[in-house]
């Protein structure tokens, strides 16, 4: 019998999930849990517009460039958070300036991303420090988030949340109804740039927790799941944030005991929530979300 068909041993499961001394461990990573919750909040909010503006690929691009920034900072032995933020800001501004239309944006992202990824790989290859640091930027890790780093995360997220609150309404208008928004004088271009900057900050935060490869699990999947089950402008962000927080915090808690990076836990929870929402959504669709109470709309009398 080949190794492929072997039943997973206890050891396998033990590596995946272990809850020995769980209470103690929880105490140790309490900073990480706060970081996860904050990240969920920011990712869930920003994700709503990533969906509405069709920017999933741009998010992926920004995260790879943010990774390159982080790697450069690692090599130069300066603050990795700062490197990640600078990298993603540069990416967001470039993508925002050069690609205002979705198609343009995709090609610009596709051009910038591999270049940045290549640079990142170069920086990591030159880096001679601890290898866990290298791997962490790409796939995430439960770094015992130290206090200064947590302060960075919380500070950045406060900026992002306030910024989103200020531009929320006109940005929503410009995102879902661009023609009328323009006619009403909504400054779509400036809003788009401001949003790109906020997105960049959110991505730079996420890169440090879940890693560059998996940022989409917190910035896209939760919002994509939310729009499957509701179309309400209140419930979409609420559910999106809830899903993102559950994924991030739940992922960290499950990953605690095992010897595996945090990412698979976060992405799996996030993915399962999405699958669940799709199932609920399709049932809803079959039963007729669009169901009317009898009279065909066309027969209604018309008066203005």
């Amino acid at each position, binding site marked *: 019998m080949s190794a492929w068909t072997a039943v997973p041993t206890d050891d396998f499961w033990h590596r995946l999930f272990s809850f020995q001394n769980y209470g103690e461990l929880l105490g140790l990573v309490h900073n990480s849990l706060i970081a996860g919750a904050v990240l969920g909040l920011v990712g869930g909010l920003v994700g709503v517009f990533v969906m509405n503006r069709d920017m999933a690929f741009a998010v992926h691009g920004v995260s790879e460039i943010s990774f390159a920034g982080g790697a450069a900072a690692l090599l130069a032995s300066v603050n990795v958070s700062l490197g990640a933020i600078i990298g993603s800001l540069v990416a967001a501004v470039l993508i925002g300036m050069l690609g205002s239309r979705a198609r343009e944006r995709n090609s610009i992202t596709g051009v910038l991303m591999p270049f940045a990824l290549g640079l990142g790989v170069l920086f990591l290859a030159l880096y001679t420090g601890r290898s866990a640091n290298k791997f962490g930027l790409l796939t995430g890790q439960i770094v015992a988030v130290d206090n200064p780093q947590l302060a960075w995360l919380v500070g950045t997220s406060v900026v992002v949340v306030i910024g989103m609150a200020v531009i929320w309404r006109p940005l929503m208008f410009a995102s879902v*109804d661009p023609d009328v928004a323009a006619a*009403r004088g909504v400054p779509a271009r400036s809003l788009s740039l401001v949003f790109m900057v906020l997105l960049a900050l959110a991505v730079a935060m996420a890169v440090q927790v879940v890693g560059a490869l998996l940022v989409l699990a917190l910035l896209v999947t939760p919002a994509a799941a939310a729009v499957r089950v*509701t179309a309400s402008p209140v419930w979409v962000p609420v559910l999106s944030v809830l899903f993102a927080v559950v994924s991030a915090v739940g992922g960290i808690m499950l990953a605690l005991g095992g010897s595996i990076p945090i990412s698979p836990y976060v992405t799996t929870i996030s993915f399962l929530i999405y699958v669940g929402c799709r199932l609920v959504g399709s049932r809803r669709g079959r039963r007729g979300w669009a169901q009317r109470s009898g009279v065909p*709309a066309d027969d209604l009398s018309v008066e203005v």
Partner: protein
Amino acid sequence: MTREAADAAARRTTGPVLELDGAGLTFGERTVWSGIDLTVEAGEFLAVLGPNGSGKTSLLRVLLGLQELTSGRLSILGGPPGRASCCTIGYVPQQRLVDPVTPVRPRDLVRMGIDGHRWGLAGLSHRRETRARVDELLDAVGATEYADVPIGLLSGGEQQRVRIAQALATDPAVLLCDEPLLSLDLGHQRQVVDLIDARRRSHGTAVVFVTHEINPVLPYVDRVLYVAPAGHAVGSPDDVLTSATLTRLYGTPVDALRVHDRIVIVGGSNETHHHIERLPR
């Protein structure tokens, strides 16, 4: 008389809603149109006709304050366009395909028409009034039934009704419609035009209706602005949509035939005439 009707009446006495005076637009070397003199009164229904590329959309952009005239003058309610256009102009854009999972309901779209351009989150302060206003607007176009259905799941006709409710949200003096009948079947076309016509009669809202097909709106139209490659003409449909005028505007022989209550325009060459009609059944 309701407050709105009173406002409309007040507007009516203050002169023309919209005034173009020697208006011209040039992109680089190319003159799109020039020397347009046009006055639109309250309650008037103006159809803007012309082939693709004749500058109908540019004219709309000028009226919305998104594009500056290269020559001449535009005034809306006696003032310059632009910022003021926010609340004096209601805009019904060309229908675009909406993804079924876009999380927007008719209720939200209409609400955006009221306060979507303001900063910040939708406040709690005027929540009840805004909600009542949205319900009223949806009811007026007969869209209450599907007010909570995601917009991407609505039919084209339903979407256009919601669009009209949105455009009327600020109780505008002018309703600017960009090909609102595109891709609608005949029944829905008639309903949408009826809605618009009823509004201008009850509230004195002026209507500027850009279309490439005159017949669905012919019974309602007061005047036509026809923009074509070799010039433009303003006047009643009977004056403008004639063989002589169109031949002059296109610079090539064109025949305009009246068949019952429809106008059929037939190009003398293979030039593009976008409202060449099939004969009525």
